[in-house]
């Protein structure tokens, strides 16, 4: 489930943990409790997390494949086209010699595949996003170092500020805090 827009008040609730296992555990519990619009923040990727959050997106690999195919086509097409546009005999080679054409085809395939993969990843992640409500949370700067955060967003059907807070407290976090809304960038 996508995040709500940043100007909803309150934006959500944030619980802070000090160990990855706690976070994973907390996420599982929240899912069981029926929460769906939630996200976890950690200094490094946690193996269990995608499954715990019930994520199964394969958009990035598909983009990679698409890029590769497109790149290869572009590479080979480019060489066919240019040799056809101005046929020039060189070195006793036939005009369309597939053997030498393979190399540039391969290079462009790689270039496009990687380009698509990384660009796709950033777009799907809505990055760059310099400003985000969660940044305002106390201690959140440690999310990139040694703390682990769980956020339940306000657009979750079961979100109710006091109940949800209570629920989070039951997970024995270091702290539970409301995420203040801000304005949504254009």
């Amino acid at each position, binding site marked *: 489930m996508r995040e709500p827009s940043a100007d909803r008040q309150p934006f959500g609730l944030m619980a802070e943990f000090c160990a990855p296992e706690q976070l994973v555990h907390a996420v599982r519990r929240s899912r069981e409790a029926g929460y769906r619009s939630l996200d976890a923040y950690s200094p490094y990727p946690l193996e269990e997390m995608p499954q715990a959050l019930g994520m199964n997106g394969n958009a990035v690999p598909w983009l990679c494949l698409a890029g590769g195919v497109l790149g290869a086509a572009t590479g080979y097409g480019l060489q066919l086209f240019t040799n056809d546009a101005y046929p*020039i*005999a*060189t*070195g*006793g*080679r*036939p005009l369309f*010699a597939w053997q030498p054409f393979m190399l540039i085809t391969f290079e462009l395939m790689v270039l496009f595949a990687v380009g698509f993969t990384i660009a796709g990843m950033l777009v799907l992640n809505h990055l760059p996003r310099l400003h985000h409500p969660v940044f305002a949370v106390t201690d959140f700067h440690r999310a990139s170092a040694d703390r682990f955060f769980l956020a339940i967003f306000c657009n979750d059907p079961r979100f109710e500020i006091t109940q949800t807070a209570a629920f989070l407290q039951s997970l024995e976090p270091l702290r539970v805090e409301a995420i203040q809304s801000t304005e949504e960038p254009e």
Partner: protein
Amino acid sequence: MTADRQRERWERAAAGRPGGVDRRTVLKAMAASLALAGLSGCGAQADEKALPYVREPEGFTDGGIRWYATAAVFQGYAQPVLGKTVSGRPIKLEGNPDHPVCGGATDAFTQAALLGLYDPARSQAPRREGRPVAWSLFERFADDLAVRLDQEKGRGLRLLTGPLSSTTMLAQIAAMMRRWPQARWHVSDPAGPAEWRRASRQLFGRVLDRQPAFDKAEVVVSFDGDFLGPGPRQTPNARKFAEARRRRQAGKGRFRLLAAEPVPSATGVAADGRLVASPGRIGRLLTALAEGLESGTLPVAGLSRRQSDWLCDALTALKAAGPRGLVIAGDYLPADLQALAMRVNHRLGSFGETMRFSEPVLTAPPDGEESLSVLVRDIDAGAVSTLMVVGANPVYAAPGDLDLARRLKTVATTIHAGTHRDETAALCQWHLPLQHDLESWGDARAVEGSVSILQPLVRPFYDVRAAAVLLAGLMGRNVSDRTLVEETWRERWGADFPGRWQQALLEGRAADTAAPAVLPTPVGAAPAIVPETAAEGLTLVIRPDAGVWDGCLSDNAWAQETPRPLSKVTWGNVIGIGPGLALERGLETGDVVTVSVGRASLAGPVRITPGHDDGVVSVTLGYGRRHEGGLAEGLGHDAYALQESTDRWQRGGLRLEPAGRREAIATTQPHQAMDGFDFVRTVLPGSAAPDGKHAEENASFYPKAPVQDPSWGMVIDLDLCIGCNACVTACQAENNVPVVGKDLIVEGREMHWLRIDHYHDGDIADPKHHFQPVPCMHCEDAPCEMGCPVNAAVHSADGLNLQVYNRCIGTRTCSSYCPYKVRRFNWFDFTGNDPETIRAMRNPDVTVRSRGVMEKCTYCVQRIAEARIAADRQGRDIQEGEVVAACQQACPTTAIVFGNIADNASAVSKGKADPRNYTLLAEANTRPRTTYLARISDPGEEKG
């Protein structure tokens, strides 16, 4: 006519053409329906400004090419040429095809003459005591001088010229001597065949010219006679030699060339049997041969095995050949030996057959060979008050012992006239700039005597005068050179003058003016030849330089940069020594040594020359020039210092000490041993070149491209090539090939598109020598094209391997991939700072290459384009012989054949069908368009 009828006609025209219709009828039809008319357009040239004529010459077409028959004068002889002018600028000299002497070919010197015309270093104004003055000043001086001379009957006046065959000037001199009886005419001919003239007197009591007919000969035995080497007779000799060789190749008769020589020469390289022999030993061999011929038994005592074998071989061959035999003794051998050789010829009965004679073409001065010595003697005697030097440079180009530099100072009045401010000019009170032959009216005689009228290809660039005009001026006449020449011949031809004059100008040769043939008989008995003196010390051999001759070409950049045929040395001369001597003295190529004879000495780098006699040290003339600002200033060493007026060419008792330092020799081919490779192949007569045929069938990963028509190719016959460099210089002139100078040659950055590789094979003391011209091979599967990332090196439909300069970005991959390394790179901007005159000389049909681009032989693509356009305009195919590459055109032995290989009748196709045909580096599998015909080994060897 209605549109429909018109259309029908076109359709018929097109339909009637099965792929290639009879185009002529169609064009007739066209002509009928639409009367052919003219049209308009605009100039398409690079320069912003366009300067049309004020008064257009008759029949002028903008950028149109015109040919004028004239001659370049070398050593007094006319070298007949056609001068190619574009928009009034001479841009190329080619041999005059209608002239019996050259038949369209030239030598390297004649090709370089063009640069002599444009030479920016030429003297451009009269000078007095070194300061520029107006001509009028000299005229006034000349008038006074004439008055004084008239009073004194010319006492003390001496005129010194170079060798002369100009009827006009000789007439002028004669007139001068009549007017001033006490005056005297001298000739300085530093590299002339003086010894032969002596021999001729000894034999026949007078001077005759030899006109050897090598083409008629079956056996030629040469004793240090480099008749194929550089010199005024190189072109005719080479042509006749090639004719004989081709006769042998075709199996239509025998031809063998045996040569004995101390220093390898073009003749030695071409010879079937070459013997290394010291000058002394050569005399011994010649006398032995003469005896053997008389008595029938050879006195082989004291001869080495190799020598006696060679001698027996020569003797038997000569006996067999009889009148078809020919013995040649080198021009620089002592008179006695030359005379003896002639007697041998006479004994063989070859007089009038292979050895012919004619009246002398050059007119000898009163004192003959002694001319210069007499002048010196008179100067010392104080008998010379006025010395006028015209077209000679005795201060530099004269035996050291004459020391004219010192003696000139003792002469009251000295006048020098020349194209350059040379050493003599520097010491004379007056210097007068002369016109170049190619910008003057004049006349001269070719080696066989026929007269060529020199007509100017262009008006003089500078305020200079023709020598004839100068002499006339001295005699108080103010006339143009044209008038003088016309007068001369009007006088001689009388009523036929207009016709003959026309004919002479058109054909470049006045009909039946050849020197009358003479059939002399030797008088008296052969003088006893001084027996070979026991070799004390080393013998010095002095010869003219293959690049700059006696020094007359040392201001010519093309001549300087053309690699000497054997040593491949440029921009300087070296001291040649044999491998044995080098070993004995522990010398390496490049070590500087001091060579001294008597009091004279010189220092220079040695070059170990394979096949060079170990008792001999060889030096060449033409270097060590001392005149300021000259191109050659500070290059090489002056071998004249070692000459003595009594014996100039061989000197015994030579001392050689290492100077303990080294000097870089600017050579274009540091490594000349063939190292057991088969770059140059040799076959027995009538047999095929090893795997010559398989080159084509070599496997290729890709399908072969179909051969189009026309499809250009080249065959080079190594059996005919004498390595004379005519092709190299012709290519340089035709294709605007830049000169890079000594330093860059040392760095390996020469620009010649066509190089002649020289190889020696086998025992370094007496190896086989080979020449191999290497232009671009124009490979079918060209690695260079494959390497170029920007399509600058590409293939054309007619099989050319093109280099598109304006597309080249200079990755140099093409050159890295080229197995033949024929590509040349513009490391710097070689053309940007060329002086105005050099720009004017450029061939407008060839792109001038800029910095950072690769260039190479194009098979003269501009000439192909010219022919293609001409053919297309006339709606026909390009005919055989219509495209002649510059190198092919110049080649005196027609070793280079170029043409359409798609046409089986073409000469080049026949060449490629020859079993001797082989591919250079077939293993590289590049399928070159340029192939070679293997050399043929000595037929003498096949029977034993």
